[in-house]
Each structure stands twice: as structure tokens, then as C-alpha cells.
């Protein structure tokens, strides 16, 4: 369970939000909404522990998120793809899994790449891929992702309609397995399964 209490965020001189709190249970999705500059990304960075909140506390399973256990349960996908241009999609996927201490066989990785529509491009350096294709390489990580908490920053950006539906399916599968997800998005996307909660900043 992810809990946030009384969070406050100050960027520069502006207080973006204060007294913000929520609870997220297994199988629930938290939709963060708000206009540009409302502090959506700042809130996400607080939730993953990269930005210390001005005030308030965030707990994961009742414990502060500063523990190593939290990071072992967390899968974060930022608005940057975190893929290396010089590596191939396959190498990127395997390196990311290794860094996250996850078991990922080469077959699983190839399967994930096929699902995101990159079959036949596994061995091409990522710098030759289009923006949307690079995003898909980053999203391919989610296919075999077993960690319970997903934090996704604008996951639907740069995707075509088919890919949006596919990703919505992946997220609902994760929720059905009892996972949790927090995400921001500007597009209206319906996630078929799980309880959806909204938070407007």
C-alpha cells in the first residue's frame, strides 16, 4: 500500500501544492491530472524518492520510502526513455533488467519486443529508431515487469492508437494481478480493469 500524507511541494518561489495526501491499495490506479506546471512530475519524483518533499511523508507498506525494499518494488518510467542510443533494443532491455536485479531471459526480452512491434529491429542500434519506436523500447520493460508499484510519467506520449490500446491492456493486466500504478497523462485513456482514482492538481 502506498500512502502519502500532507505533501507539500515548492519549486523556486512557487508553492505548487500543499496538504496533499492519498492512499493507494492493491489493484488500484492513480490518475494524476492537472495542467502543465501544476506539479505532476514533481509529485511523481517525490513518490519515487528522487525529490524530497518540503513537508509531509510518503510510506510504502507502512515504511518510509527511503528503504532499499521500496526501490526493489518500484518500476519507474520517466518522460525520458532511459535507453542508450548506442545499444540495440535487446541489449537495452537486458541491461535494464540486470540493473533492476530482475531475471529476464533473452527469449522473454525478444517476446516483449515483438509485442511492442519491434520484431526484426532487435539488433539495430537505438539511434536508428524513430521517437515512437524508442518509446516502445522503454515500454517493452513493462511487459515482463513483476514489481508491484509502477510509476509512469506520460506513458502514452508519442504512441499511435494501436500502441495506446496495447499499453492500456498491459496496465490493466498489472492491476488485475494486484499491482498498483500511478501515472500522469493528458490523453483520455480508459483502463479496462482495476479501480481508477483521480487526483487533480
Amino acid at each position, binding site marked *: 500500500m502506498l500512502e502519502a500524507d*500532507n505533501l507539500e511541494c515548492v519549486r523556486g518561489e512557487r508553492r505548487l501544492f*500543499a496538504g496533499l495526501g492519498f492512499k493507494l491499495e492493491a489493484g488500484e490506479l492513480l490518475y494524476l491530472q492537472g495542467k502543465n506546471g501544476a506539479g505532476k512530475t514533481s509529485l511523481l519524483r517525490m513518490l519515487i524518492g528522487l525529490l524530497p518533499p518540503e*513537508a509531509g511523508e510518503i510510506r510504502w507498506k507502512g515504511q518510509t520510502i527511503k528503504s532499499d525494499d521500496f526501490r526493489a518494488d518500484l518500476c519507474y518510467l520517466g518522460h525520458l526513455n532511459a535507453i542508450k542510443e548506442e545499444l540495440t533494443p535487446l541489449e537495452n532491455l537486458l541491461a535494464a533488467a540486470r540493473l533492476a536485479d530482475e531475471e529476464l531471459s533473452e527469449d522473454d526480452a525478444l517476446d516483449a519486443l515483438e509485442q511492442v512491434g519491434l520484431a526484426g529491429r532487435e539488433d539495430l542500434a537505438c539511434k536508428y529508431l524513430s521517437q515512437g519506436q524508442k518509446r516502445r523500447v522503454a515500454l517493452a520493460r513493462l511487459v515482463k515487469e513483476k514489481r508491484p508499484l509502477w510509476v509512469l510519467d506520460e506513458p502514452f506520449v508519442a504512441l499511435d492508437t494501436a500502441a495506446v490500446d496495447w499499453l492500456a491492456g498491459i496496465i490493466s493486466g498489472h492491476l488485475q494481478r494486484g499491482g498498483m500504478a500511478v501515472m500522469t497523462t493528458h490523453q483520455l485513456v480508459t483502463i479496462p480493469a482495476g479501480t481508477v482514482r483521480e487526483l487533480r492538481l
Partner: protein
Amino acid sequence: MKDRFNLYRFASPATFYPLAGALIPWFVAVSVVFGLAGLWLGMLVAPTDFQQGEGYRIIFIHVPASWMSMFIYLVMAGWAAIGLAFNTRLSGMMAQALAPTGALMAFLSLWTGALWGKPMWGAWWVWDARLTSELILLFLYIGYMALTAAIDDVKRADKAGGLLLLVGVVNIPIIYFSVKWWNTLHQGSSVNLTKSSMAETMLWGMLLMAMCFWMYAIAVALMRVRTIMLERERHTDWVKAELAGGEK
């Protein structure tokens, strides 16, 4: 609950600002008194050195400036440690307020050292261990100021500057001993800076001047920290009230 918390958070700068303002005139006054006494003792009372003539009197500036340059760096590192350990906002401001004075002291020490060195050793600069270390200390000050000036986010600036100060303070003894070792290895100039027997009046003169510099450093640092506070907290109520009160 929220209001009390905010009050606590803003407590230190809001209360420190008027306190610092009240203390500054005292430190300035004490500094002037010590300075006059020290200069009188150093320039008029202390006997002429039979080897070095009148030129040696520059030590009444040189030695206190060198002391202060090292001491201020330590104080800054102390503030940095407090800031990193307890996440207090005042400590970062204090470290930043002290830095220019520290750099000034290091520069003064080098400059007066050069002025003193020319008549004594016949050279403006010798690669003596102390001179070299002092020069490196000046570089460390400049590096700190450049780093904190380059970072727009004050929290990050304080943190980065604090880390740099701590790394620097660990490195200073290593730098000093390495330079000393380098100096003996190269057997360059046979300059020996240690004084034989120092007349008591000279020692007193130097101590008085050191006190003068010390009080000056505190006064200037307090003035600077007040400015930094106003700038950083310009969106808070107490600064707005302060500025509105000043305009009337």
C-alpha cells in the same frame, strides 16, 4: 498544525535577521577598537627588527590574514556539516556569506606575503610550502563561490557547496603535506619562515590585529547573510513586512 509547522520552518531566518542587524554595529565597533590598538602597537610601539628593518611590520596584516583565511574555511566547513546533517537553511547561507571574506583574507595574505617577500628574499614569489598551500586555498574559495553562484536552485547550491567544502577540508591537510614534501624533495629556496624569538609586543600586536580581523569577518558575514536572507525569502511574509517597514 500546518501553520505551526510553517512558523517553525521560517523561524530561524526571521528571528536571526533582526538579531544579526542588532549585533553588527557592536562587532564593527569592537573591530575598530582592536584594529586601532593593534596598529598602534604594531606600527609605533613594536621595536624595529635589527635584521629586517621596518619592512617586517607588514606581518601585522599578513599573519592575521593567513590565520583568518584558514579559520574561515574551517568555519564554513563546519556550517556545511551542520547543514548537511540537520538540513538547516541558515547554515548554507552562513557558508555563502563567509566565502568572499575568506577569499579576501587568502588574497590579502598572498599579496602582503609578496610585498614582504620582495625586500626579505629578493623575490615576489617563492614556491614555499605555505605560500603554495595558501594559493591553493584561494583556488578552493573561488571554486566554492563559482559553484554556488552557478546553481540557481538554492537548496541544491547549499548542498553542492557543502559537499565541496567537506571534500576540501579533508583535502587541505593532504594538500599541505604533499606540498611540503614536494618542497623538501625539490630543495628549491632555503627560505625559512619561522621566526626566531618574537618580541612580546609584536605578538600582542598580531593578536590584536587577529581579533580585529575576526570581528570584521563576523560583522561583514552578518551583513552579507542578511542580504542573502532577504533575497532568498523575498516571497515570505516577514521579508515583505521588513521591506515595507524600511520604506516608510
